[in-house]
């Protein structure tokens, strides 16, 4: 190709710096760099950075005398509670299959246009409150919740009573998240509930529920602040907000799944 030299992308320059290219590709980039001094200078900086970083942290790649004790102590004292029984997983899989088949019925609601400025103060503050709750509690390593997932029935009854609402804890296992637990949090100046979920690698998300004094409905809305994202909606007397540390597509699926499961609750 005659235009070979004009087709070097920035991704290829990174791959060149990181040594992910084949020999002919390397040669092509090097020839191109000779004709593009500004890019060549930037690539040189990146190479220098990479060398400095490798050298800077190399000395930390060592074992420590206490490692063995650390590993064995944690391994034998903090075994996690067992994973969900197979039967429950199968039931949940069936549920999401059925829910998937029904998606069409909900679709108009989810694709309603979202204008952030149209949201009411109450809705706006719901997403903000959800994000601060997430920021405060998701970073807690040891005590993120007041009542753990080992007492699910108690958790649902307790938070449901404070919220004056028949609270059913959403099962998000089909999406890879299991319940960590929940706590009571203030929402709009009154008792609200926060549920926390986590995937196997420790990625966390929270579901916040608060009473909505205005008793109205909204479509699905989305708020993003400093890299933290929240999907939220109001359904009559309760406002819901799903906040997480996960990709937006997945977070939306989770919010939709919560919506379906909560919808089941309030319709009954």
């Amino acid at each position: 190709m005659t235009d070979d030299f004009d087709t070097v992308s920035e991704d290829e320059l990174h791959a060149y710096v990181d040594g992910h290219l084949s020999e002919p590709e390397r040669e092509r980039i090097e020839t191109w760099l000779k004709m593009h001094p500004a890019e060549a200078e930037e690539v040189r900086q990146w190479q220098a950075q990479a060398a400095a970083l490798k050298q800077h942290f190399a000395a930390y790649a060592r074992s420590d005398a206490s490692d063995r004790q650390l590993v064995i102590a944690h391994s034998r004292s903090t075994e996690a509670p067992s994973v969900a029984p197979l039967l429950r997983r199968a039931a949940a899989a069936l549920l999401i299959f059925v829910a998937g088949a029904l998606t069409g019925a909900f679709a108009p609601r989810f694709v309603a246009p979202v204008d952030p400025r149209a949201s009411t103060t109450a809705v706006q503050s719901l997403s903000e409150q959800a994000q601060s709750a997430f920021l405060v509690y998701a970073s807690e390593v040891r005590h993120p919740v007041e009542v753990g997932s080992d007492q699910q029935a108690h958790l649902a009854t307790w938070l449901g009573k404070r919220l004056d609402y028949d609270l059913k804890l959403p099962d998000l296992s089909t999406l890879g998240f299991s319940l960590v637990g929940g706590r009571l949090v203030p929402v709009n100046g009154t008792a609200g509930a926060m549920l926390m979920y986590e995937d196997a690698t420790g990625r966390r998300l929270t579901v916040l529920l608060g009473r909505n004094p205005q008793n109205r409905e909204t479509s699905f809305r989305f708020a993003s602040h400093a890299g933290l994202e929240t999907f939220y909606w109001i359904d009559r007397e309760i406002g819901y907000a799903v906040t997480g540390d996960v990709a937006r597509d997945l977070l939306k699926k989770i919010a939709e799944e919560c919506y379906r499961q909560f919808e089941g609750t309030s319709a009954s």
Partner: protein
Amino acid sequence: MSHGRDGPGSGAEAKGSAPDEFESDVLALMPALRRYSRSLARSDSDGEDLLQDCVERVLARRSQWRGVNLRAWAFTIMTNLYRNRHRRQAQHPEVELEEDLAAEETSADPIERRRLERALNRLSVENRSVLMLVVVEGYRYQDVAEMLAIPIGTVMSRLSRARRQLAEAMKEDNVIALRRPK
């Protein structure tokens, strides 16, 4: 107490006995995990805290490990813990730089080392972890995308931003630091 996975050496042994297979695998990863935790952290003690939390979690979650690539799984857990913690630290960004445990073992100029640390501390959590996974830990872009559950395009844009911001921060930081007394 039983341990989810059966294998040579696992199971019914008493406390303090030889590590089982999973524990041995984790032990073998400690140097790599220590380096990665330090490359994310602001100080040596911060790095050790992160490492301990990570090891604790890896062992507590051993029954959820799917049996493929323990190293990548542990790195993902470390990255998530780092992001969780960092949210809290973001409200108090200034942390005293402590003595480097490893400083004596490297030939690099201590002034340069501090300059690099300061520049790294200006990167966002997301950009920093991608940079370290690619440059220091040698992962391929596709592997990083899978480990962090993000599209490969996001990996590339974070890498690009990290490199440019780091270069920029190194350029700006021309303050002469006091040389540490030997």
